[in-house]
């Protein structure tokens, strides 16, 4: 058991553990809506577009967290704006927007010859989460989870039946924009742990695995949270004991959970119509 308890004598491990729990719960619960509303691509786009925000913040010596947040919110606003118009298909517009912004981020970082300085943001560093970053993660997690709890029934209704929601005066586009803002906040917390490139996996994989095992949204959120947190903790210990990249270990664990859920579903699933 010492391999389990000894690492916790280090401050950075305790900080990492709390970060894994907070980020796991936030991404898993929000991710349930992301998966059910088929917004996985948007989550990926917002995560990638934080790169130019991070690079610019680094170059100007301001908060990386703030830079990432500004870029994520700008992307969320851009996607919301594009969704309201039919000029090009939404997935096409997002594809253009996020690859373009990611390319800008790479260009600036290479020009500044500082790629390695924020590689921990690209690939995540759960052992490097600072106490200040942990406080910000906690604030964002509280904001995201609190908002979802407050608007749960509206979020659920606009997901399952936006037409009926519109009839009773509940605007589905408002709830979607709110979800985009929450997604931006969750992404900013996620990149601390698994990095820009892999954050969308935290949003999608645990929720997708859970959706294979249950038919209730509340249970799906609970299962996704368990999967995300356990993956975070396993990744944290793997990073400590075996000196592997924490973000990659976390995402691989999530993927293994997904494979297990898929196998379990195929073994025990009930036949369904529709």
């Amino acid at each position: 058991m010492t391999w389990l308890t000894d690492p916790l004598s280090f401050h950075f491990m305790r900080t990492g553990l709390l970060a894994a729990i907070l980020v796991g719960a936030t991404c898993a619960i929000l991710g349930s809506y992301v998966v059910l509303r088929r917004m996985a691509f948007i989550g990926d786009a917002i995560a990638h577009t934080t790169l130019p925000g991070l690079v610019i913040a680094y170059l100007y010596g301001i908060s990386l967290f703030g830079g990432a947040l500004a870029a994520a919110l700008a992307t969320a606003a851009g996607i919301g704006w594009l969704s309201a118009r039919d000029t090009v298909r939404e997935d096409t517009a997002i594809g253009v927007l996020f690859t373009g912004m990611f390319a800008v981020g790479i260009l600036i970082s290479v020009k500044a010859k500082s790629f390695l300085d924020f590689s921990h943001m690209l690939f995540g560093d759960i052992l490097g989460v600072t106490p200040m970053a942990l406080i910000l993660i906690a604030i964002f997690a509280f904001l995201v989870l609190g908002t979802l709890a407050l608007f749960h029934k509206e979020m659920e209704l606009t997901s399952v039946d936006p037409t009926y929601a519109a009839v009773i005066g509940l605007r589905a586009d408002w709830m979607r924009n709110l979800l985009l803002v929450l997604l931006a906040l969750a992404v900013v917390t996620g990149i601390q742990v698994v990095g820009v490139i892999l954050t969308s996996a935290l949003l999608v994989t645990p929720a997708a695995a859970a959706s294979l095992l249950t038919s209730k949204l509340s249970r799906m959120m609970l299962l996704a949270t368990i999967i995300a947190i356990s993956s975070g903790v396993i990744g944290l210990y793997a990073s400590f004991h075996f000196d592997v990249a924490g973000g990659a270990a976390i995402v691989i664990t999530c993927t293994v959970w997904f494979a297990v859920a898929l196998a379990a579903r195929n073994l025990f699933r009930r036949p369904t119509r529709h």
Partner: protein
Amino acid sequence: MKHPRFPYSRIRHGTPGPEAPALECREVSVRYPRAEHCAVVAVSLKILSGSRVALIGANGSGKSTLLKAAVGLLPLCGGAIHLHGSKAGGCCHRVAYLAQRGELDWRFPMTVRRLVLTGRYVHLGWFARPHRRDHEIVQKVIDLLQIHDLADRRINELSGGQQQRTLLARAMAQEADMLLLDEPLNAVDAQTRQIVRDVLRTLSQAGKTIVVATHDAHDIEVDFDSVVQLSGGRLINDLPSASTPPIVADQRISV
């Protein structure tokens, strides 16, 4: 009926006018966004409270479009619609709308009971959670539509007829004074057909206004007081139902 503290839309929760017709259309024209032609052209009709009216017509005749415009899903490009004295889309706590089944994501992880419960949300508004009375109303309509054995099943496990009964249960859970039903008997089994007919009869006896858009004239012979026919988006006429005693047109419906 209790007004929600934080309604989803103050415009839509307008106070109904006394003595106002349940549904009144004056020279209503409706065009879908980016469409070249109007789907509904200069339709005028008045439906009094307590009426049971069928809107009939072939696919594309404009009957579903008219209902969508009435509940505020489509903007008008001419004329005016009033529901209980409020403009189109208004008074939604007193008007229940049953859309066609395809407009819902049936794969969403939700139970039948939970979906029926969403019919109470218009009375709850933002931040309020369903009370015991809401759950009691849900149970009552679930029993009435004979879906109690399905109540805790996931909605993607339902057959077409069961889906339709679930949606009608939700519309009834709203406890509205008027129900606008779009093709409620489309592609459903004989059992559901009979249950829906019985429920419509019960609602009518309770004084509710019922407007049903249907392309199946066969159903009208049995169930409706009056018939309004649409073709190419235009009103053709209104006819008393063959199976019910003739009614004075302007007593029930005037065009």
